């Protein structure tokens, strides 16, 4: 897939052309801010979440399909407990989840273990290296073979509510500017800034591959999610570009800007 030349300079003229959707979103956001929308507290049934997110809900059944292993009852209990904790902590409501769904978010259950490549193989922790070993879906690169981040495992069972594609306004911004955008995003969505974060490289790879394996659809096909983790050279790692040639891992200095490099807010 060739690269569109205009992407080299389009970041310098962000307002030259605007999609009607971008304009509508900007107007809606401005309106929401003025009205000071706040989440309405009401009980949230677990199955309702599945209903709201539909295809964008990667729950227990889907994760079992992706990882190739069944979740134990204890793991399922933890998963449910973690979800309720998240709802409570972040004040999530049906309305706020519906809004997130409309804005292109998905809900994904992350687990810490993967089945081995073959049936006889042992289970292994979820790291970029192991994901790469299990799924031949990575772009052919070797620069990160010995990088620490490639061996960092997911910490265990937890839920992620994450935007499937980049936040438009975070594209062509450097790393620090993106941080400010995340804070602003948290404010406009009435959520404490501490709950809105970047993902780690392992989380991005897990989410993309899980979605592809169970929904047969590529997310971040052209764009790159800039993570919170640095490579050994001090550059921040980004993951994405999941075209037909595979999932890419790259890194850029914090002052770098690029039209396909942005951030997917995660909470």
């Amino acid at each position, binding site marked *: 897939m060739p*690269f*569109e030349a205009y992407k080299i300079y389009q970041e310098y003229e962000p307002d030259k052309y605007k999609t009607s959707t971008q304009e509508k979103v900007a107007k809606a956001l401005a309106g929401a801010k003025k009205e000071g929308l706040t989440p309405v507290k009401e009980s949230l049934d677990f199955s309702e979440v599945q209903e709201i997110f539909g295809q964008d809900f990667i729950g227990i059944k889907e994760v079992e399909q992706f990882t190739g292993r069944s979740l134990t009852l204890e793991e399922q209990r933890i998963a449910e407990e973690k979800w309720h904790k998240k709802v409570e902590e972040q004040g999530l409501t049906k309305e706020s989840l519906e809004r997130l769904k409309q804005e292109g978010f998905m809900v994904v259950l992350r687990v810490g273990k993967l089945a081995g490549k073959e049936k006889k193989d042992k289970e292994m922790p979820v790291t970029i290296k192991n994901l790469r070993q299990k799924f031949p879906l990575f772009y052919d690169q070797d620069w990160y073979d010995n990088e620490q981040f490639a061996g960092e495992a997911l910490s265990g069972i937890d839920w992620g509510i994450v935007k499937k594609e980049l936040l438009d306004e975070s594209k062509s911004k450097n790393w620090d500017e993106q941080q400010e955008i995340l804070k602003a995003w948290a404010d406009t969505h009435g959520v404490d800034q501490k709950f809105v974060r970047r993902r780690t490289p392992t989380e991005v790879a897990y989410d993309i591959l899980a979605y592809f394996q169970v929904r047969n659809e590529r997310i971040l096909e052209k764009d790159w999610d800039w993570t919170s983790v640095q490579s050994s050279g001090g550059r921040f790692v980004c993951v994405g570009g999941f075209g037909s040639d595979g999932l890419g891992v790259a890194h850029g200095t914090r002052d770098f800007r690029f039209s396909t490099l942005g951030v997917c807010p995660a909470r």
Partner: protein
Amino acid sequence: MAKESLPHIPNIPTTPERVLREKKTETKEAKPLSAEQIKEQVTELFELSSARAEAGKHTREAWGGLTKEEREELKSKGEDAVVAHIETARLDPELVEFRETTLKEYDDRIAELSSNPQVLDAYKNRFGELKETLARTVSYEHLRHEEDAVDKAEQKLRKLYEGVGRAPGPIERKKLTAFSDRKKEVEEELKGFELDSKTIDMLRRREVRRMQHDLERYSFAETESRRELIRQVLPDLLQGAPVLFQGETGSGKSQLAKYISERYLGKTPTIVSVSEQIKESQIMGSRGLEAGQTVFNYSEFVKAQKEGRPVILDEVNLMPHEFAGLLHDLLQKRVGDVWVHPVTGEKIPITAPIMATANLKSERYKQRYELDVATLRRFIGGAGAREIHYLDIGKKDTEGNPIAPETLQILSAVLADRHGDIEWSEKEAMEKVEELKRFVQACRKIQEDFTLSIREGGEESLARGDRLAFKELVITLKDQIEIMKAWKASSFREPLDSIVLREFFHKAEISGRAAKDRENMIKVFIANKLFQNTNPEDFKIQGLSPKAVRQWQGKE
């Protein structure tokens, strides 16, 4: 905008449909493909169809201009007829064979893919979507052009009244109001235009294509700042007023003048290179003998005036003052005036302007003539004495970091193919763009320091802080374009810094001349993370200390 009002794009069969028809192949049911497989095959079909157009053109050229039907007809007459044609038209039989087989292979693969109805349908759907996007894009561009045309027409009319120093009468006022009203209407229409991401993608690609076209045809690219400058001077130029472009060497003054002349005035200009040794005869003409009679031969300069073509006086600041006086009368004339040739007395109606360029005062030109005040005043009274600097000089982002958007826009067009794509994969793109931006950043720093050195005298002692002194060598936009072309020609396999070394440093090896400038350039490039592993000897710069280079590279 309603679909009905979109411009009509003719309903012609797609390339795969035409190929299938020519090959008399029908689509046939095949094993069902997954959505991913269909997507991949449609992408391949698009690439093949677009490359086939070029392959077809090359085949026609190789056959000496024969169309497919003509080739078929020739072949039907037998091998002797073919051989005779090849010999008569002096064609290269190997090339003919190569082009012919290549085209056939394209057709075979296109037919193979599109014989699957799933793939052909998906292709046609995507093609249909593209056509709709094109229609929207063209409509949007049409509105933009109209906005621009109304604006220009209004400005031109206002200038006319300024020129004669009279307020517009009631009818003229009505006409001016009509222009303003139409402008507002177009602006409203533009605001209501539904732009989706596909239309924006196409608008951007067409932007790149236009720039490529301008670079090929005029060796000039109209970026935002240059467009603004043209917008400012054009109304006066259309009235025949003179303009002076002053700037640093390689800032594109002459190319700009030539571009305005060809693109906006629609005339090929006559370029007069001015030097200190210029003679009066080169400006006005000279007497000569023809068939025993004394005749007066007009100079190219006067001939251009007579033919209504603009004249570009290149480096007019080098013109001796006594000759500059010859021009004063002419520089005050406007369209509709008549200039009387001082020797022949011929009355020449003025229809085109004089454009001049001048290098900004530098140490190099200090000893030479500067433009005298009287001449300068005549330019100022015309379309102005305008300064042209290197693109993007002084531009910064919101955080105060230097940026070079216009240079990058031009270089992107150089790197792209005719569809606006660069042959980088998504994975490579990030790294390559970073490399490109560092290169442009270094070039900008060199141009900035060169400009400051020139303005302040270019003495070595002026190098201060992180500013370096450049006396005579600078890396211009033209140099950057050449480097990009070479990079592209290497299919981006060679690192950019080795191309810079080969295409710039080794080509500008002028037996030690400007060695200090070249050394400073290396320092700037290394500071921008290029040449990190280059051997000091490979720069081939006299007196360059290997130790210093290693220090800049952080190796000592």
